[in-house]
């Protein structure tokens, strides 16, 4: 249990060793250790569920390790709370940003600062704007956070962490919500901070970013460290990938048959405009065709109108202009869409599709089709049989039928929704982020199911934030930018840089 004597020439900002954390019978972290020096960027990589967030939460004092030690600038210190971690100079920028949308930037920063009873907002705003200039963050102190883009919010979080005196900044998957060009801007900020002598831990699962920014890399797999503080240049891409996933993943083989465009499209949208929940125009004259047997990918920065696009296609959102039809039948409400054979995997299943106090079985009739009737009641026996068939057909190993959804994790909920929707005989599949929250095996199975739907002649519209996923599966990718389709790229011409430009600038 005693810290090893450090023989390194430079004293690390942070050094941990032997971190172990168990949840019930799952070992989330098993004897994990690494160190971060001042003036370096240390990448922490690993798959979902590799134990990265548990590790971060222990460093940040959210969880207490079952065993292990931690040195901050050579002093033993294991924070018991985030406040203690901050006092030690450790700052954390979470993936789901913790800002309050209804407050201004200054007020959000005031929350984190020791201001005294009177906030003195004017004086604080000046300090915010000074610090923003010093660190090159370009943050407007008077702006309401609600009005900022994700990238801007991230910079506010970073500024907040810096203004509270952090010497070590931990960024938890900061790039997962950003477009490629925004990623570049963020990496620029990170370099700037490194040059000012801060230690940076950046969590990512993207190799490109490791290559672009990391001085050293630590790889976690299944709760254990596979590589500790390695220099990325010493390893090939394949070696790093294998360290992360343990086995090399064969690329998904997506056979792309020629698409017959003479038949009526599975989804036809012509000149469709629609408003967001807040009443802003979220879609501007979108024209889109998805043919039977075609998988069309939708790329775009988060919040570019993907949600509204899916909802309009499913009749869930009224179009302010234009027409929508599924397999030739006009769509005006959820019922017409369902009757025409559309199914949908929603963007946020917990908010959109889950009734927490009902069981898995009781979720099965919620597919937009008429509820199987038995007299005035529901034909549960029939639904039970269909559910077993669907489960066998999809192979996503859904939770038992009697389990309440309130007892299930996000990934298990996603599998319930996927099983229900994708087992239906459909003409159009609208899938928003279908592999969210799933482990590697289920991600692959879900992708296979979507490709199967395509091969049996359904049109598939698939939204994803993972360009690699889209590029490996889609016949065509349409890119959304600020509510309109900024470009359309066929499979043969897929190119990351071009897609990125369409996402961010709306032109290529």
């Amino acid at each position, binding site marked *: 249990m005693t810290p090893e004597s450090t023989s390194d020439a430079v004293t690390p900002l942070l050094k941990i060793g032997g971190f172990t954390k168990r949840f019930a019978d799952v070992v989330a972290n098993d004897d994990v250790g690494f160190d971060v020096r001042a003036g370096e960027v240390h990448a922490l990589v690993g798959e979902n569920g590799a134990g990265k967030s548990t590790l971060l939460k222990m460093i940040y004092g959210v969880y207490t390790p079952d065993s292990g030690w931690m040195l901050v600038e050579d002093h033993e210190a294991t924070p018991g709370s985030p406040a203690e971690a901050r006092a030690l100079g450790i700052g954390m920028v979470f993936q789901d940003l913790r800002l309050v949308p209804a407050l201004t930037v200054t007020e959000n920063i005031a929350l984190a600062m020791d201001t005294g009873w009177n906030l003195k907002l004017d004086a604080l705003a000046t300090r915010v704007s000074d610090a923003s200039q010093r660190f090159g963050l370009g943050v407007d102190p008077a702006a309401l956070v609600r009005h900022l883009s994700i990238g801007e919010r991230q910079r506010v979080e970073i500024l907040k962490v810096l203004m509270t005196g952090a010497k070590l900044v931990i960024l938890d998957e900061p790039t997962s919500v950003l477009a490629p060009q925004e990623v570049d801007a963020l990496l620029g900020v990170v370099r700037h901070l490194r040059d000012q002598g801060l230690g940076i831990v950046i969590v990512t699962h993207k190799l490109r970013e490791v290559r672009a920014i990391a001085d050293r890399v630590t790889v976690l797999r299944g709760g254990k460290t596979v590589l500790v503080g390695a220099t990325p240049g010493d390893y090939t891409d394949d070696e790093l990938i294998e360290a992360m996933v343990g086995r090399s993943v064969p690329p998904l083989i997506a056979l792309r048959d020629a698409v017959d465009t003479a038949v009526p499209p599975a989804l036809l949208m012509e000149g469709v405009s629609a408003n967001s929940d807040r009443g802003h125009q979220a879609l501007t004259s979108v024209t889109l065709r998805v043919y039977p047997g075609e998988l069309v990918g939708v790329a775009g920065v988060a919040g570019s109108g993907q949600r509204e696009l899916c909802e309009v296609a499913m009749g869930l959102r009224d179009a302010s202009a234009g027409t929508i039809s599924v397999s030739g039948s006009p769509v005006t409400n959820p019922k017409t869409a369902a009757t025409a054979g559309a199914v949908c995997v929603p963007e946020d299943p917990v908010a959109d599709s889950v009734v927490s106090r009902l069981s898995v079985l009781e979720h099965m009739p919620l*597919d937009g089709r008429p509820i199987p009737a038995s007299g005035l009641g529901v034909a549960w026996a029939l639904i039970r049989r269909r559910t077993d068939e669907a489960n066998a057909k999809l192979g996503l190993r859904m939770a*038992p039928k009697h389990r309440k959804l309130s007892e299930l*994790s996000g990934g298990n909920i996603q599998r319930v929704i996927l099983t229900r929707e994708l087992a239906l005989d459909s003409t159009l599949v609208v899938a928003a982020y279908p592999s969210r929250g799933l482990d590697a095996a289920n991600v692959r199975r879900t992708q296979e199911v979507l490709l199967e739907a395509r091969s049996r002649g359904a049109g598939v519209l698939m939204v994803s934030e993972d360009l690699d996923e889209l590029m490996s599966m889609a016949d065509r990718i349409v890119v959304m930018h600020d509510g309109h389709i900024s470009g359309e790229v066929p499979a043969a011409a897929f190119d990351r840089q071009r897609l990125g430009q369409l996402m961010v600038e709306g032109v290529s």
Partner: protein
Amino acid sequence: MSAPTDVMVAEPQAPDPAPAAPARDERWLRAGKLAVRWIAAILGAMIIFSVLVSFQGANPLEVFADMWVSTFQRPRSLTEIFIRMAPITLAALAVVLPARAGMMNVGGEGQVIVGAVGAAGVGLAFDQTLPGGLVMVLMAVGAIVAGAAWAGIAALLRLVFNVNEAVTTLLLNFVALDLLLFLIYQPWRESAAAQPSTREVAVAAQLPTLGSTGVTVGIIVAVAAVIVLGWALTRTRWGYRLGVVGGNPEAARRAAMPVTMLLLSALLVGGALAGLAGWIELSAVELKLRPGFGTQIGYIGFLASWLARHRPLPVLVASFVLAALSVAADSLQLDSGLPASTINILTALLLVAVLGWTTMKGKKT
């Protein structure tokens, strides 16, 4: 290590076994814990009540003894409990149904009053000309329509103008009360000389009693409503849909359910049930409209619904308990010299205990 028993919860990743109910031991354990909590909650409420009453110089033991004797041992008191229970049960169902659909009907009080006003309007207009049985039925219809219409105002505000129904139903209670007072102070007043009230409805239009018991058929109506509603909520597609809407309206909308119609139906049927409560209160208990008519039946029904956690059959038990307490309240005044509304303390403490200390939360896996 002992062999795994059926107490273990199946892993979600495991292949799907037959949909088994939770294991028997576990269910008994839960039921046992729940029972202990309920008993503790009730005892706690009684103890606090005793302390408060003793502050006012009354001996709590005597108070409880008087309440017990007058509630269960005087000949007419059980009859009285059943008479009071009927409208409370219906008013509670008026909360249960919207709650299923995720809505909070705090307007039972107003819906009961307006239901009674509707019944009285029909009754006073026709009881001299039409046969009594027919008038009785027409009065019930009038009450149902009036109660539903009153809830319909809140439904309209919610569904068209997006105003929260808990706030509107509450405010409508005060409007209903003013409507009642307006009517009995002027247009429907029996005589300017006497206390403001309407005249009594004709005997033939009053609710008959069950045999020689003195209990009116109101209780039959209430029990029938509980059974029908219990069946409708658990066994029909309408009940299933209401449950989905109440659990997550967005999920219901995405499942192509007619969400607006479902919400409307829940509030309207709820209002109709409260209206029926007003009819029973009028034609079985009060016989005429007067100031203070049906006081707090709606609120007591609200409490009963929450005590029963919005389940129809337990509503019967909760309504019985609250009806008994309201009979006991009279004894507080007569025997112990305490104001009758002192009983609200006990009622409220009971609900506080039930709201705060009888829930059990599960864990995610």
